[in-house]
Each structure stands twice: as structure tokens, then as C-alpha cells.
């Protein structure tokens, strides 16, 4: 059954994308570690980390695409799941510092010593073990998404209302994590990490490995999402996106399906956050900022919602642009980003990949039309309507 799931999930585009990602996962570390710094093919470490970060963003965008592109749920709080996963990983990294912190306390992280805490809060127990932290990376966002979604979808909160309350959720989490009493480092968050699984987090080798892990995670998630989307279940998801009431009347438990997609998506976002934190070396409440979640939406929109490759391309393009822009003309970045929001929604509602697919499909159907009779043209026409 799993094999059939896998086979179904791999159409040509996905196959190519997964192959590229796997190739990157091998090639980039090799080019980074095994070539001399002056070699023309050498990849400097800062680029490895930068693109590693982009890959985690791409994973986040892919997670959002699963709910927005295929299920019609515009979540404006996905960065919250990302940050929760990041915090879970950050807590593991904090515990790994051990007695090497500035206060030299073997058990308590520096900020707790600073706040005069005497013992570790209960929710920090277990985070000294990697497997536990890794479990929490998936479970915590998943659980929160499950509870939140269970309430929201059951009472049929949808459309704009859902967007607004997801935004309220991330805002509430932002405020909560800013509090010192929460035990997550307050304003400053978690930082000063030393090592991960015994390897120095600053070392080139670790960074290359983290890049490879990000590429791998993205490839696996791509296969999973593709499997979900291409299964019968995925077809019903698209159906409920386009006509929720009709799907419900046909006898599908719409809220359960939405809940499933939302929870899976949140878990993927959590994994993305967990890979993000060791590569940037810090996690703070700023990641919960509602603006961040909305930015994820624009990555997905630029690439093309409802396509699986689109969000990955969008996330890398927009963030690459951001890196270049903020270095060259820092004051114009927000103009550019704002303009992107307006122009993409007005002129490119299907995104780059969506538009390209549209033209390809038109050409193909045109050819088909000229060759055979006219019936084929209708099938290839616009697959998705507005929500």
C-alpha cells in the first residue's frame, strides 16, 4: 500500500524536483567540504547556510500550500507552527550547552539563572534527548493545530474569519513567548547554541549536514504532500476547496478532512522550523510576528498556489530577492515586497508555476484540438475557481 502511495505520488515534475533536491543534498556538501576555497566550483559555507535556510522556508511554504492551495484554508498563522518547531529544537540545543553557558550552570540555561530560577520547569524535561526533542518538533505544532482546527472547522469557521483567527492565534503566541515567566527566554529567545548531536554547530561539516538534512526533509515532504494530493483523499480536498457545501452534501466529513490536512501541514511547518533554528543560531518570539505568516503566503502565491513545485520556487525566489535587496537598498525592500503582494494578486493570481502550467496546458490542448476533435479543449480549461 505504501509503495502504491509512493508510485502514485511521483509524477514527472515531482520526480525531477525530488531528484534535484537529492542531488543538491549530496553535491553541495561535497563541493563545500572537499574542494579548495579557491576552486571555481567551491561553495562557501555562508552560502550553504543561506540556502539551507531557504530550503526550510520552502518547506514552510509547501506546508502552507497544502492547506491553502489544495484545501482553501488561508492560514495566516503558519509561522507560529514553524516557530513552535523551532523552539522545540532550540530547547534541545539549549540543553546541549550544559555547563558551558556564561553562568556555568550544568542544568539551567543562562536566562533561567539570570532570572534566579532554581530548578528546571517541567516542560523542559526530556529535551536533553534528541529523539524526544525531534518528537516534540512534530507533536507540539501538530497538537496545537489539531486542537485549534478541531474547534474552528467543527463550528464551520472558514474563509476570512479563519484567516483572522489564525492571525489572532499567532499574535497570542507572540505575546505569550515575549513573557519571561513562560520559561522560553522571553524577549531574547534561545541562542548561543554550542553543538547538535555532539557536533559543533558552527563547524562547516555540521552546516553542510544541516543543509543536506533540509534538502532531504523537503524532498520527503514533497513526496508526502504529492501522495496526499494525488490520492482519492486529495481529490476530495480540492473538491471541498472549490465547493465546500456541495462536498459536504455528497456525504464527506469535510471538517475531518480539513483537520487532517491542517495538522499534517502544521507538522511539516514544525520540521521546517526545527531545521531552521540550528542554521540561523537563534529563535526568538519575533518569529511569531503575524507579518511573518503573511509573508509565507506571498512566497506561496508568487510560486503558484495549488502546485507543489510553486511554493518551493516562490520561497527561494522571494527570499533570495530579499537577501539581495536588503543588502543593496535596505529601505526599498518593503516597497518591493509590498509591490509584490499587490502585483502578484492583481496580475499573476496563479503564480509563476501556475501560469506556466496554464500556458503549457493551453498549447497542448490547442495541439490536441487541431489534431483530433474539439472535446479535449474543455477538460484542460482552468481547473480551479476562486474560493
Amino acid at each position, binding site marked *: 500500500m505504501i509503495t502504491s502511495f509512493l508510485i502514485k505520488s511521483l509524477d514527472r515534475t515531482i520526480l525531477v524536483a525530488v531528484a534535484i533536491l537529492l542531488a543538491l543534498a549530496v553535491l553541495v556538501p561535497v563541493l563545500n567540504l572537499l574542494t579548495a576555497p579557491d576552486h571555481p566550483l567551491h561553495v562557501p559555507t555562508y552560502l550553504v547556510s543561506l540556502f539551507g535556510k531557504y530550503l526550510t522556508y520552502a518547506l514552510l511554504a509547501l506546508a502552507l500550500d497544502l492547506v491553502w492551495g489544495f484545501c482553501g484554508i488561508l492560514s495566516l498563522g503558519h509561522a507560529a507552527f514553524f516557530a513552535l518547531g523551532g523552539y522545540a529544537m532550540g530547547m534541545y540545543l539549549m540543553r546541549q550547552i550544559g555547563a558551558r553557558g556564561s553562568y556555568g550552570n550544568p542544568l539551567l540555561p543562562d536566562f533561567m539563572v539570570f532570572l534566579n530560577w532554581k530548578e528546571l520547569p517541567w516542560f523542559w524535561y526530556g529535551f536533553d534527548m534528541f529523539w524526544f526533542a525531534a518528537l516534540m518538533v512534530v507533536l507540539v505544532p501538530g497538537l496545537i493545530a489539531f486542537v485549534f482546527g478541531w474547534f474552528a472547522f467543527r463550528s464551520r469557521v472558514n474563509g*476570512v474569519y479563519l484567516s483572522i483567527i489564525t492571525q489572532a*492565534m499567532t499574535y497570542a503566541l507572540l505575546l505569550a513567548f515575549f513573557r519571561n515567566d513562560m520559561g522560553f527566554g522571553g524577549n531574547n529567545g534561545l541562542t548561543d547554541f554550542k553543538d547538535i548531536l555532539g557536533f559543533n554547530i558552527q563547524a562547516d561539516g555540521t552546516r553542510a549536514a544541516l543543509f543536506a538534512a533540509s534538502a532531504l526533509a523537503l524532498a520527503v515532504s514533497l513526496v508526502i504532500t504529492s501522495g496526499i494530493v494525488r490520492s482519492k483523499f486529495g481529490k476530495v480536498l480540492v473538491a471541498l476547496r472549490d465547493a465546500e457545501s456541495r462536498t459536504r452534501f455528497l456525504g464527506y466529513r469535510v471538517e475531518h478532512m480539513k483537520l487532517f490536512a491542517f495538522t499534517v501541514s502544521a507538522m511539516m511547518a514544525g520540521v521546517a522550523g526545527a531545521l531552521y533554528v540550528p542554521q540561523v543560531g537563534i529563535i526568538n518570539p519575533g518569529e511569531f510576528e503575524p507579518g511573518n505568516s503573511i509573508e509565507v503566503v506571498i512566497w506561496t502565491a508568487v510560486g503558484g498556489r495549488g502546485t507543489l513545485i510553486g511554493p518551493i520556487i516562490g520561497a527561494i525566489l522571494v527570499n533570495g530577492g530579499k537577501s539581495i535587496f536588503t543588502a543593496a537598498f535596505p529601505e526599498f525592500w518593503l516597497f518591493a515586497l509590498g509591490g509584490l503582494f499587490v502585483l502578484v*494578486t492583481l496580475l499573476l493570481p496563479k503564480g509563476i508555476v501556475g501560469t506556466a502550467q496554464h500556458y503549457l496546458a493551453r498549447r497542448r490542448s490547442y495541439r490536441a484540438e487541431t489534431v483530433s476533435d474539439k472535446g479535449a479543449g474543455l477538460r484542460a480549461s482552468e481547473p480551479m475557481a476562486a474560493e
Partner: protein
Amino acid sequence: MYRILQTVLVALILFTAFPAAGLSAEEPLRDLVNALGTAKLSNMDEHIAALAKSGDPKIVPILEALSDGNLYVRKADDQVFLTRESGANLTLTDPLSGESVGEAPKSALSKIKVNNSVRRSVRAALGGLTLLSPDRNQRFKAAQSILQSPNADALPTIENALAAEKDAAIRTLLEQARATAVLASDRPPEEKRQAVQTLKQNGGREALSILSAALGTADETLKPEIEAALASIEQTQALWAAGQNVWYGLSLGSVLLLAAIGLAITFGVMGIINMAHGEMVMLGAYTTFLVQEIVRTSFPGLFDWSLAIALPLAFLVTGAVGLAIERGVIRFLYGRPLETLLATWGISLILQQAVRSIFGPTNREVGNPSWMSGAFELGGLTITWNRLWIILFALTVFAGLLFLLKKTPMGLQMRAVTQNRRMASSMGIRTPVVDALTFALGSGIAGMAGVALSQIDNVSPNLGQGYIIDSFMVVVFGGVGNLWGTLVGAFSLGILNKFLEPYAGAVLGKILVLVLIILFIQKRPRGLFALKGRAVEA
């Protein structure tokens, strides 16, 4: 004419004669003062009491100097002087006339020695003296200070002062001081009981601390009485505190109402998610800043009118920006709310960055006109003028908007278009024009809100962001498409927030409110006052 001159002359003579009369009265006083110089520590009290009995305000600086150790006696003739150190010498001042009488070497004088018991009697005497001073402010201060450190010895002085006092405010203070002193004295229990009653009636935080202090030393018969009084004061205090919380809540609610009411039109009535709404508020605040800058540099006399000038200007500026946004972007996105949300978010980023580029990222100062600064007391409540004006302003804007929507042709058209666009169009209403005007109206109201919020918040490019989530919460909570819902939503969220704050802290309180709203939406997905009927399905 002659008569007037005569009166003036007589008055003049009388005035010049008066100090002379004073001088002659000074002689016994001077003896008393000089007696301080030769007095022993043991009988200093009597001398001080004798001085205090004279009731002359001139005594005050002398007694102060005595307790500060600045009163010296000249060894040669036992004359007493106020002194100030100047190098090796002392500058001498005549204690009664206050005139300088030159300097003298330190060796020629000796300091009048005091100890703590003398200082205590000086303080009591001073309290009594200033309590009788003809200057109201001085009496007021004296009454306050005596209330802060009351003791049984001061009782006669307080009673004396109370008998002479006419000013109501000072009387209350004195009565409280008397009651406190009585509680500390060895007067009969009946009088103490009355004192407890007096304190209970006056209430307040001081009474609370006085009574709880007295509870420890009071005898058994009085204890239940004091406890009852304590309970009653605490209850009134709690009531006032609740009242103050309601006031703070109303104030926060009015801010929320102002921020949300424009949104209630664009989101509630038109169904457009305008994420740039907060930026409209910000633009309104910056308009106020600009107006104030111009007024300050060119017409400083008009400063108190600056808000009145800024109000229509802000409405026009943000209304025009709103119109441009609607014509340029939003009209292409009708029927696609999620896309509208993204596009307006983009616009909000652009507006923020534009303001940051023009005015800089730091806070700009917007001043309060005189009629908006300060506060007044209402019972146990402290009410600041700017909050009061903002509440009134918010309600006025609300009423105006309600009137516009319900009683004018434009409002009628707006409601028609939102309820059934095609039908309205068939009836000859030019729906694109109505859309544009409605959106401009919503934006303009946000600008007016910005004028008000510039008075209580920091005017920075991020001003709007702080309000956007809150205002969406208000609109969603109150029920989309219903102005009354927005009103009720804003005030109930404001008051709820302020009542949670003391128990949970400001941040946790806010989180709780957000969680409550999220839960509330589960129960009533369309808010408190949901629209009913076919419009809902559209």
C-alpha cells in the same frame, strides 16, 4: 477728589505705622527668643511652648533653625541669631526682623544644643503654628504633614486648629488627623469609637492604613468596631477600584471603537479585508503631526485649535488615499476576499515604508492642546481629560456614521449595494461610485481615529500595526455588517481586558482575551449581532 486723597493719605500713614507697632510688640517676643540661648536642655520644652503660645508666624523660621542646629547665641550679650555658614565666619540674621546683621567669627558664638526630645517638641509646635497660619496653602500642607505623622501630643493643637478652620478640605484632613491622634492617645473609648467612625466615613487609603495600625494597639472592646470599619472602607475602595477599571475599560473601548469603526464599514459593510486600515490610522496621526508643526512654526497662537484643523484634513488625506487604493487595486479583486487581504497587506507595507522614509523611523512628537491635558477627580476616580475627550469623540463619530448610513441618501445607496449589488445596479445606483465612496469613507474615519490616537499613543510608522488585529477582533466579535455590534464589541472587549489585567497582568490578559474571542467565534461564527437572512449566504 480731596476726600479720596485724604483716605489714601490716611491709609499710607496707617501702613507705615503698622511695622512700627509690630516692632513694639516684638520686645517680649525677643526676650522669649533670647531665653532660648540660656535655657538648659531639660527646660527647653517650656521655652518652646511659650514661644509657640505667642502664635506669631515669625517663630516658624526660628524653631526650624533651632532643630536644624542653625540657631546660635552670641557669647558677648546672649543675643540669639539665625546663622548661615560663610567660610570661617557665620553670617548672622536677626531672628525677628529677618535683617542681616553682618558676620562674626565662629568663636564668638555658641550653638544652642538640641536633642531628639527637643526636636520633637519643636516639630509639634511648628505643626500647631503652621496650622494657624493665615496662608491657606501652608495650612493645607501642615494638615497633610500632621496627618502623616500624627501623635497624641498634637491633639490639643489639632483641636485648636479645627475650631478655627473654615476651609472644608483642610477640615476633613484635620478631622482625620484628630481621629488618628485620638486613637493613639489615652482618651476614653467613647471618643475613640467616634474617631473610628470619622475615619470610616472619610475612607481612603490613608484611613485604611491608620486603622490597621490602630488595630494592633487598640483594646479588645474597640477591635470589632475597627474591623468593621476596615471592612467597610475596603469595600468602598474595591467599588471605586472597580469603577476605575470600568473607566479604563471604557477608555480602551473607545480607542478600539475608533480604530475599528472604519473597518466596520469596509469589512463589515463591504466585505473587504483591508489590512492597510491600520496604516490609514497612522496617516491620520502623521497629518496631525504635520498640522501641529505648521501651527507651531507659523501660528503659535492657534495651537489649541490644531486638532480641530487636523481632523477634517486627516479625513480628506486618508479618504483620498483610500479612494486611490480602491480605484487602483481593490476594485479588481471584488469577490476574492483572500486576495484582497494579501494585496492590502502589500499596500500597508508600502505605506509604512513610505512614512518611514519621509518622516524617519522614530516617534514624532504630537502635543496635547491645553484642553486635553490634565485630569480631575470624580469621587474616587481619576479622569484624564484626553481620555474623556476621546470617548466623547468616538461616540460622536459613531453617531455620525450611524446617521449617515441610516438617514441619508448616500447611506441608503450604500446599504442597497451591499445587500444586493445587482438589484441596486438595476435600480440605477452606480455601484462602482458607491463602492469607491464607501471605501473612502471607511478610510477617512480611520484617519480621524488617527488624530485622536496621536494624543495617547506614539506616532511612529508602526502605529497602525498595533491596532489592526485588535480592530479585526472587535469587528468579528461584534458581528460583521452591524455598527451596533462594533460599538458593543469594542466596549465589552475594552472592559473585559481591563478587568483581566489586575489578575493576569497586561500581556496575559490580552492573550486571554484573544483566546476567549477564538473560542467565542466557535460558538457564534458570525459574532454577537449576526446578520440574518439571505445576505449571509452571499
